[in-house]
């Protein structure tokens, strides 16, 4: 699954919904295998829309889990919403974020809920958030 998807997935256990610790999940960096997939091309407008929407703290948290601690502490802000008016530095930031959020795939891995501790797995790029019957 793509890195950006981590920004949408929470623990499936219903009682964890009331806890702030059920999102984002905590990814085990030593067990996650990352692969870059370049099939989606950079579309700056798409990326600006994504950035508008993402929970930046969750991006930071998952990036750190996976060993990337170079992101700015605050969500990047851009001088313009029009792509053509962005300066070179800003274009570079967008390119980096595209590589991280859209092109980075977690193909194998595991992650756990920081509230209940339940462990979920990613296999062949597909995350499995199905609960065993006793938790569902």
């Amino acid at each position, binding site marked *: 699954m*793509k890195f950006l998807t981590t920004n949408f*997935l929470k623990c499936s256990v*219903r009682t964890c919904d009331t806890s702030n610790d059920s999102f984002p999940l905590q990814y085990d960096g030593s067990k996650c295998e990352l692969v870059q997939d370049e099939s*989606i091309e950079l579309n700056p407008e798409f990326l600006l829309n*994504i950035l*508008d929407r993402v929970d930046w703290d969750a991006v930071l948290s998952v990036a750190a889990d996976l060993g990337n601690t170079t992101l700015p502490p605050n969500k990047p802000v851009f001088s313009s919403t029009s792509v053509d008016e962005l300066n070179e530095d800003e274009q570079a930031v967008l390119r980096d974020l595209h590589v991280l959020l859209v092109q980075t795939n977690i193909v194998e891995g595991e992650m756990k809920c920081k509230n209940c501790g339940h462990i979920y797995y990613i296999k*062949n790029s597909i995350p499995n*958030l199905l609960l065993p019957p006793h938790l569902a």
Partner: protein
Amino acid sequence: MLPTPYVKCDYSKVYEPSEDSFLLLDALEEDKQYLQQKFQNQLAVVCELGPGSGIVTTFLMQNEIPIKNSLYFAVDINPWALETTLDTAKRNSCEKYFMDPVRSSLCSSFRNNEIDLLVFNPPYVPAEEVPLIPKSKEYIDEWLDLALLGGKDGMDVTQIVLDNLNQTLSTKGIAYILFCARNKPEEVVKLMKKKYNWDSKLIVHRKAGWEVLSVYRFYKDI
């Protein structure tokens, strides 16, 4: 008419695109303009529940519904459906779109109020009960039952989704859900208004064999 995806997969493992799937495509085609206007200049997060072969999610990608800048999630309990959805997307050259399959029971693993467009062709066939989740990926027939049988009135699974719409969908969120006549959709939509204040609109309906199928759009005008 919009192009329809080319689908080639093992129908012993996933639900074969049928009248209901095509009716759902027609509903989304019918509402294409409406959706485009609703989500223009922003990101749209799309989630299809029970994608089966992946025909609907692939159709959405190849026709850029609701908008070009969309994220697509295909959610199924059936592991075969998730693999097949990836495959169908590839066969139709949709790798350039953002799509991830997620194995999950309905929307329980998605952050609340983040989905803008929910699409669901549910297991709507009335049956004594909804089958249990098969114990192994290899119990192929049991996975297919899960795609069809919907318990009492065929509404057991659909009702869970409807009862959770307020938590699932974003403030602008819209859902397209397919019903058969035995689901008593007219009563269902009245109750959705009364209980949760969801408006609804019948987008398309069609006779398929001795079954009448319909697709309703659920929305809130804000």
